[in-house]
């Protein structure tokens, strides 16, 4: 977070220098034009190590220089500021060979000292950032060693799974620049920030990359990021030709745009994100004992899963722009998805009812009752204002009504929902989504470990309460301490199988990665990974007149 004094100085300094930078930018203009799109919230920080919100992540992606970058199209790891790298067999140490002759945006030379400085800042225990926490696999100190001005090794106290891929999120800071985090190595740099309104990025004149013809990148002269929380306004502005890109496009808007200008919309297929539902299995929750018994029964959960028609959810709620979900990993995650898992739980009302009857449930006059005669009634809570979740909940209500289960749908604002999920446990079932930003299953570690706060169906278990949770704990720890990709894959494949079998989460759909790119933007190739439309921002150009769509 930007501190009080630093923030004031930062904003003033940005404003004072904005004109100079913009004028300098004009002098150095490549003729690639200005790209415009919306951030959906205020960026909370420009410090790349403290980034946690989406707006700041976008700015970090556009301005930060990283040692290694995951190619958003091929999902392969590619060298950036490091020209080569090597991970030790025990997954504790990584050695980089850095490129030479590179400078930060303010002209400060880039060296191994900057990497050391960045890693030390990142691993400060007081930082509490998601990026830093991803590297923290065990207690102890991280050691950095400069072997030569261009060679450096970093040793972690415990094995870090997917160590090299995690450097995709680490933007290198300058150890010596007086501009601190505002001196960057990425294709763009922050030139102006009007709180609540816009962030202006201009091309970094010292960016090190060139294209195949030797022309300096980026092509674009600037990027204007309008802070616009309202997605409807964003859509209107896109239609008016005022913004060029929309990420995570709404499926309704996708269809509307497709009708008037099919060339501007892109459906890249299933994304990494999933929509899921789960039951409250917390022993200390204030639910009646008989309900806890239902929710803690894998057979009950499996039957509910079987009674939900995922094809209808995809077709009706998402207008076909979603795929029935198979398990915790989307098929879009090419390496980690367990291809042995059969298609999504087949919808079968009869099979679901039969399974429930096998557990002692009885259908009497259209109402399902358990063996003690309790009517099967529960409520699903979801966040208000999310029309897709509200519609999904209504369709689930209809599906379960067909087997005699009465479902009440309750929408709550997000803070109230989180309070019930994490503190009071006053809920029966939740319908929410999981946004996966990374490909590696280690990013979900805190969801699967039974001791974790984010083990949502039953958080912070002192010891695993079931055998299958104990097995997941063991497998997740095993894969996290191994550098062998095949062994890790084998362990996580098994985790996926257990999850599909025990159904702690009822995975519903994987939404498609929908986006819109204006016709005047050249070089765009939207992908499923974030940031969908501007992953290759240094090679985008805006040419021609901005036209309104009619």
């Amino acid at each position, binding site marked *: 977070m930007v501190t009080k004094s630093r923030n004031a100085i930062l904003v003033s300094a940005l404003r004072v220098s904005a004109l100079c930078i913009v004028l300098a930018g004009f002098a150095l203009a490549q003729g690639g034009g200005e790209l415009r799109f919306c951030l959906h919230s205020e960026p909370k920080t420009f410090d790349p190590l403290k980034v946690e919100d989406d707006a700041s992540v976008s700015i970090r992606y556009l301005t930060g220089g990283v040692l290694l970058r995951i190619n958003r199209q091929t999902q392969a790891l590619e060298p950036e500021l490091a020209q080569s790298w090597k991970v030790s067999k025990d997954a504790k140490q990584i050695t980089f060979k850095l490129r030479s002759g590179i400078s930060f945006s303010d002209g400060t030379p880039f060296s191994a000292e900057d990497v050391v400085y960045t890693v030390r800042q990142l691993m400060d225990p007081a930082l509490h950032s998601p990026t830093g926490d991803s590297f923290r696999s065990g207690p102890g100190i991280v050691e950095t060693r400069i072997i030569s001005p261009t060679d450096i090794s970093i040793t972690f106290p415990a094995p870090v799974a997917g160590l090299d891929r995690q450097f995709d999120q680490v933007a290198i800071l300058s150890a010596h620049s007086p501009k601190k985090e505002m001196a960057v190595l990425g294709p763009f740099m922050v030139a102006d920030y009007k709180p609540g309104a816009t962030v202006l990025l201009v091309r970094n004149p010292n960016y090190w990359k060139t294209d195949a013809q030797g022309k300096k990148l980026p092509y674009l002269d600037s990027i204007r990021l309008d802070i616009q929380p309202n997605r409807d306004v964003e859509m209107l502005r896109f239609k008016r030709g005022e913004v060029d890109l929309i990420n995570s496009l709404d499926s309704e808007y996708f269809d509307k745009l497709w009708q008037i200008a099919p060339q501007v919309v892109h459906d890249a297929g299933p994304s990494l994100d999933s929509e899921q539902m789960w039951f409250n299995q917390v022993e200390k929750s204030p639910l009646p004992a008989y309900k806890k018994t239902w929710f803690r029964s894998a057979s009950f959960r499996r039957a509910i899963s079987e009674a939900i028609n995922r094809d209808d959810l995809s077709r009706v709620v998402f207008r076909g722009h979603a795929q029935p979900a198979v398990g915790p990993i989307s098929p879009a995650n090419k390496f980690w998805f367990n291809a042995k898992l059969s298609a999504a739980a087949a919808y079968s009302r009869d099979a679901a009812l039969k399974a429930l009857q096998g557990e002692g449930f009885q259908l009497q006059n259209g109402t399902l009752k358990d063996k003690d005669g309790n009517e099967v009634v529960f409520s699903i809570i979801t966040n208000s204002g999310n029309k897709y979740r509200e519609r999904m909940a209504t369709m689930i209500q209809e599906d379960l009504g067909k087997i005699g289960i009465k479902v009440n749908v309750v929408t709550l604002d997000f803070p109230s929902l989180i309070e019930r999920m994490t503190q009071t446990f006053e809920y029966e079932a939740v319908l929410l989504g999981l946004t996966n930003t990374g490909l590696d299953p280690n*990013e979900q570690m805190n969801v699967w470990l039974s001791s974790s*706060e984010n083990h949502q169906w039953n958080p912070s278990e002192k010891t695993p309460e079931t055998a299958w949770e104990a097995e997941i704990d063991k497998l997740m720890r095993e894969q996290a301490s191994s550098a062998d990709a095949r062994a890790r894959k084998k362990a996580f494949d098994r985790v996926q199988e257990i999850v599909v079998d025990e159904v702690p989460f009822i995975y519903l759909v994987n939404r498609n990665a929908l986006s819109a790119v204006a016709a005047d933007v050249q070089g765009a190739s939207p992908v499923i990974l974030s940031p969908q439309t501007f992953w290759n921002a240094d090679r985008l150009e805006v040419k021609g007149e901005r036209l309104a769509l009619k």
Partner: protein
Amino acid sequence: MPRHRQFASSALLQKIARHSLALVATVLLGGFLAAVLVRLAPGFEVDERQLDPRLNSESVHALVQARAAPHNIFSFYVRSLERAIHGDLGTSISLGQPVSSLLRERAPLTLRLVALGLILSWTSAMALGLSAAWLRTTAYDALTTVLSGTFLCIPAAVLALLSVLWNLPGALAIALIVFPQVHRYARNLLAKAYNLPHIITARAKGLSESRILFWHVVPVVAPQLLAVAGVSVNIAIGAAIPVEALCGLAGVGQLAWQAALARDLPLLMNVTILVTLVTLLANSSADVIGHVLRSQQA
């Protein structure tokens, strides 16, 4: 100084003192009530970031601790006031920036929106009210009344959405929200004033309309219109919240909306105090000026 003037100025001073006292008490109470309501709102002690699966237990605990800070809301409020006296309004929980700088950055836009909205609404309301009083045509009067009634029936959020849809300035949405309220009172007051015997006589004697308006009508209706002016400021400020939130305008209204959604106690408390202060100042000023005008007329 003549005795009646001495009496008038002392009454005025008493009125100003009463208003100042009420203003301070209301602002303090308003701020406290806002703080209590936010503190008691469900979800106050949680942070959306807790759900980030990349955060480890220590980081989640740090987030929980940061949110759980003010257990005693009264002592929190007193401490906040003490800090506010020294110019420190605290730090926004959701935006991570000093509240004072957030308000400083956003207030000019809201003030501009509200001022423009008020000018537009008052100009149109007075123009329609005066023309109806001058023309005295039933059809025209009905037309203007229907027009203002229509805007009165449309919710503020719908007007804001229409302004987004048709790419109209946010100030116009505020003007359309305030207009029917002002028009109703202005029309009635003006119609009543133009029916006063001395004004009918003046018109019969052929006095110019501008002379009748400024010499005979304005002095009669000014004190009541001033009271409406105070209320219209309240309406305009209230309208700024949905208009800014829906139109994506970065003013204090949008900030208040975001603060409410994020249970941002320091921000919401200060925004409430600021809004209460501005609305009470507007109402009190209108009342005091009205009092002066009435005294002069007497």
